[in-house]
């Protein structure tokens, strides 16, 4: 076995070891993968209101690879606990090395208000359809609903106007505009129209939308 082969084998061993090491990727921590930590603000999420046609996306920075199982959040004083309308979350690559912008890396099954927000002032969670290993980068955490603004829709506790910085906060624009995102029983459809990368950070609810105190776990 010549020197080159030995070197190549050593490299292969190292790469294999690295691959095994990746299998030990830690769970995502709520302390670093959160939107807002504050709960002084609130936002009612409904289709046709500030969230566009039921979809809004919040920028989120992941500093290191981790495994996420789902998303947790806190319901507001008014909630939709009916079975009339759907709610759901998705995690989308925005500026992530090795992940095409717009790729949905995790999503929840669309659920009714009875599951999404069974009671007011309550911390709850939804699991992704399957756990996801997410690398470092900028992601969009999308929240969608079919609840119309004429109904009692679920509110979530979250940020205040002078809250945290976010890479971006962007509401869907319905059937016109730059972000024609939709949400329904089939989940999200971003129509390849996603926020620009490398945009200046925005300051919490100053965007008109109070990001919820949601964390990835």
């Amino acid at each position: 076995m010549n020197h080159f082969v030995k070197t190549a084998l050593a490299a292969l061993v190292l790469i294999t070891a690295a691959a095994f090491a990746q299998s030990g990727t830690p769970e995502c921590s709520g302390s670093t993968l959160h939107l807002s930590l504050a709960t002084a603000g609130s936002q009612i999420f409904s289709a046709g209101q500030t969230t566009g046609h039921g979809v809004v996306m919040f920028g989120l920075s992941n500093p290191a690879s981790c495994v996420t199982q789902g998303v947790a959040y806190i319901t507001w004083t008014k909630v939709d606990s009916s079975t009339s309308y759907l709610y759901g979350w998705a995690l989308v690559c925005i500026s992530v090395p090795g992940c095409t912008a717009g790729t949905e890396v995790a999503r929840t099954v669309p659920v009714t208000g009875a599951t999404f927000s069974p009671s007011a002032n309550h911390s709850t969670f939804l699991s992704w359809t399957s756990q996801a290993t997410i690398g470092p980068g900028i992601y969009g955490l999308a929240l969608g609903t079919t609840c119309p603004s004429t109904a009692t829709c679920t509110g979530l506790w979250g940020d205040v106007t002078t809250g945290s910085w976010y890479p971006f906060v962007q509401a869907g624009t319905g059937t016109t505009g730059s972000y024609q995102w939709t949400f329904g029983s089939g989940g999200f459809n971003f129509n390849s129209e996603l926020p620009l990368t490398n945009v200046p950070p925005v300051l919490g609810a100053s965007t008109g939308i109070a990001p919820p105190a949601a964390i990835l776990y």
Partner: protein
Amino acid sequence: MRKLLAVLVLLMAWDLPARAQSLQCFYQTAATNFSNSYFGNDVTHGNTGLPRSTEVNAALAGFGRNGFILDGPVFYVGTECTTSHVTFDVYSADTYSQHCICTGGSAAGQGCTTISATTGQGIAGSCPGGGTATLYNNKYDVGLYCMGGNCIFGKLYASTGLLDYSELQPGIRTLPWASAHGGILLPVGTYAVAMGTNCDSGSVAGQTGQVTVPHSGTTVEWYSGPLFVNDGSWNNTPIYIGDPTFSHTISSVSSDGKSLTLTGVISKTGAVGYVQGAISAKGDKRCLQARGEGNGYGAGGKGSGWVGGTQLFATKDFVTALDPVNSKFHADCLLFDPYHDNSIGLPGESLSFPPTLAAYDSGGCTYVNNARTGIAPLTPFGQAPHMIDFAIW
């Protein structure tokens, strides 16, 4: 062997796309922007450094020293990333706007003696020992220093460069790092935001910096050389007793074994004067303020929730050193605009470390010396200072 090489090539090719795209940084140094705090140096906040005469550059003694602040907690960069900008929310602008420095003469580099009686702003006036009174626009600077990890400790990785006060009006301000050229690579490690200003440099008086004389019951701390007066009624603002406009008489002397307490009468020529520097939590408000955490531990709590002003993540480290003898902060370690002429901002990486032009080390500077061996406070220790929320991206 060919199969083995093919596998290697495939594995390398699989890894290439991930390496091709640079990871964008996005970090913030506070949890909220609920409060506001001073954007500047330790003198601006409270001129309580009171360095011994043996510790300071004589040309700078008794005047705005322009030490700067490592603000907020360090933030941990978990994966190497590229940063190009810093963003923060200016709460109130610098209302001093300028400071007055003597150029030439025996008092070169020191503050002018004439200060506006209505605004406290330094104006072109007389200079002790001759020289020309020169007005300089106040400047600010923000930078990122490595505090540990794979980055080089103490290296300034990014800086905005000198920012004129006029650029920092209220509202969200996004500034590029100077010479970023498409981004600055931050190795894995912990970083601290440093900010400096010469807002109160020289002759700028702090808010309520007006003093009346004569005054009595003065406590004098005397180590060696010129005396500094630390009078409670003057809000602990040091008065350089070497100032020829002051006179004093000593009526009694006592000692606690560490320092002398001299009781007597101090007077100043004229009816009204201004003290140099600013007063803690007052004078700083006339310099630039930006939003961040505030209100003390737990303040503003809403039920079991967290509203926004808890200062839970807060640390703020003045670049001064704690004297082990009397627990007072003394030495100035790093300086912003040490020549008082806006020629130097934060110590840059082009300088040796410790920087030779923008800093001097009297031997007790925590960040200059001790931290190099791994001692750097990463968590609050008994205080919950206000802090500014910087977004680094």
